[in-house]
């Protein structure tokens, strides 16, 4: 038994999270943890990692109460891969982070370089060793985080929605490496909303439901999988943006070159492409957050010549990290602020806002402090706030990352309703296509440093 949880109880104030939860995980198994956002998946992983020492109940990893161990010993039992790729490193480069970690574990100095290089090689990122972390893409950062766990030789590997900002290719590569680790004797527990790639490799699926945890058998799990889909998309004939001899660079590396392109047709445009290919950077260029070569016009006006304050009332961006968009303390105050600045105030009546809050399952949170909401709740609130503002064009950067299946469906429905009513035009970056594809009108793909529309998927 590598993990043993017995009679676990946890509440935040009056909200119960876990009620007498009991779980055992077999050594050397691959486990998937599922459940809607805000149900406590991250919390459970943190409990197993020993990051909640004040908890009631028994938490044993390898028959040891690891929350009592100092961090440098704990790391040899548990390795943790976090959801947010940006805040899991203290050092400026992957190699320095690896040496920092190995120094903490008191590895002899002549062994450090060898172990660090072996870990980088195992994950296949030797070429990234001395690059600045800030220049790495989300997927590359998660690979670095994995290399560190490999170097620590932890017996249990916990992954908290590690692929929320990672594209399909990188996701499959990382999963394959994790599976190899299992063959070497490591036990794996991963929390994820997107089930693709798991049925072939998992041994157990666990679902958090009603403050308890239960096992799902293979057939039950297969039934939850999304069906394969085929879609056709429209060909663009009009668009609010026109790109001319457009060229986008990132630290001297060319990301995108486009001779001529229309973007922003009425309806929903989906923008896809590999990790680090420059999708978010393109959004930054469209919103004047990043400089570029060539020309972008918005409604035939050169955006370089438009004032930022005026322009962002036409074209707004839903940032990947929702906290950036919050300006007040509570959900209610945020909603009021958005309503005050709404460009469609007649449509967004208080009743209408309540209606959407209910659909997004946020109504009961009106008095909550925005920064204390769960990851998924923050994202849903952020989306609603930007929808209420109702700029004619809204760019959405990973709006459904980290949302559970039910929330993803609701968000897709809402976006479709608003775009068919002509309220806003949406351009969406997303890696989770299952729920979005049915509502998408145009599909713009970024590949080989250029952009083109696809008619089939």
């Amino acid at each position, binding site marked *: 038994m590598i993990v043993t949880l017995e009679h676990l109880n946890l509440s935040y104030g009056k909200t119960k999270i876990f009620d007498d939860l009991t779980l055992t995980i077999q050594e050397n198994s691959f486990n998937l943890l599922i459940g809607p956002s805000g149900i406590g998946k991250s919390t459970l992983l943190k409990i197993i990692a020993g990051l909640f020492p004040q908890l009631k109940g028994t938490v044993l990893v390898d028959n040891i109460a690891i929350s009592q161990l100092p961090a*440098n010993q704990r790391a040899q039992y548990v390795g943790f891969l976090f959801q947010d790729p940006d805040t899991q490193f203290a*050092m400026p480069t992957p190699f320095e982070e690896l040496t920092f970690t190995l120094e903490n574990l008191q590895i002899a100095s002549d062994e450090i370089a060898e172990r660090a290089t072996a870990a980088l090689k195992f994950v296949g990122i030797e070429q990234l060793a001395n690059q600045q972390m800030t220049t790495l893409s989300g997927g590359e950062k998660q690979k670095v985080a994995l290399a560190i766990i490999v170097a620590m030789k932890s017996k249990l590997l916990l992954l908290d929605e590690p692929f929320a900002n990672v594209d399909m290719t990188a996701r499959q590569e990382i999963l394959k490496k994790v599976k190899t680790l299992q063959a070497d004797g490591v036990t794996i527990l991963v929390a994820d909303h997107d089930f693709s790639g798991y049925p072939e490799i998992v041994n157990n699926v666990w679902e958090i439901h009603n403050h308890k945890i239960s096992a799902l058998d293979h057939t039950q799990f297969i039934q939850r999988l999304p069906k394969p889909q085929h879609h056709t998309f429209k060909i663009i004939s009009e668009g609010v943006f026109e790109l001319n001899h457009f060229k986008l660079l990132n630290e001297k590396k060319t990301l995108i070159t486009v001779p001529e392109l229309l973007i922003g047709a009425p309806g929903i445009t989906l923008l896809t492409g590999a990790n680090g290919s420059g999708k978010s950077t393109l959004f930054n260029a469209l919103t004047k957050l990043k400089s570029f070569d060539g020309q972008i016009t918005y409604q035939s006006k050169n955006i370089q010549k438009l004032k930022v304050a005026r322009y962002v009332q036409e074209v707004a961006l839903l940032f990947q990290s929702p906290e950036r968009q919050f300006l007040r303390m509570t959900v209610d105050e945020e909603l009021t602020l958005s309503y005050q600045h709404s460009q469609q105030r007649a449509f967004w009546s208080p009743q209408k806002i309540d209606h959407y809050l209910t659909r997004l399952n946020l109504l009961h949170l009106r008095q909550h402090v925005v920064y204390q909401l769960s990851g998924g709740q923050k994202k849903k609130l952020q989306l609603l706030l930007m929808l209420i503002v109702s700029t004619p064009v809204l760019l959405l950067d990973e709006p459904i990352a980290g949302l559970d299946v039910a929330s993803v469906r609701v968000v897709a429905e809402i976006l479709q309703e608003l775009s068919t009513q002509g309220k806003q035009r949406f351009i969406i970056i997303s890696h989770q296509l299952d729920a979005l594809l049915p509502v998408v009108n145009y599909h713009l793909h970024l590949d080989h440093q250029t952009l083109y529309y696809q008619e089939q998927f």
Partner: protein
Amino acid sequence: MNSGVKFGFILIVSIELTFILNARINFIVAIIAAVYLMLSRLTWQRYLLLVLMPILPVLGAWTSFSTYGTHNMAIVMATRIVAYIYLGAAFSFTTNMVDLLNTLEQKWHLPTTFVYGLRGALTFVPRVKQEIKTIHIAALMRGEHLSFYSPQLFFKAILISLQWSTRLSTAMVSHGFTENAPRTHFQSVVIQKRDWLIAVSLLVILQLMIAYL
């Protein structure tokens, strides 16, 4: 020279200067620091800064001391300011922070929590600048204009740094960092005998100058 030795040496010289009313010594210290800076191959912007920076404080000290004090005092104060500025620059313009922190950790046995807290914070500095710009535009997109002195902008920036620091410390702990526990060192800091020799000889020369000049 090892950055820790340099730090200690410059600190001692600066403290001594505060007790000495001798323009010649100030002048010699400033010249030596300036020569060291010239040998350090800095960018031309930095050299320009070193020329321009002392002008105002020197003029200020000169006029006030020559008006309300003695002519002699004015010269001492004016040269002292130049000596301080060049000494400070001789440290800050030529020292790698990471080197200094490594020496402080390994040789001076400063608490590792302090050393790595600072190193973590240093990696976040460029991101804070970008974040402020982003907060500004994100607010504009919700119809709010935050000016550069707006308390809300600072509130947001502090809130985000607090969150980063919590996540960063969790990440450090999960990478095995334990407060003030012993660690091994991939690159051991070695202080060369030559560094000590240079620092000590320069200090002896300074004492001799104080005694005889």
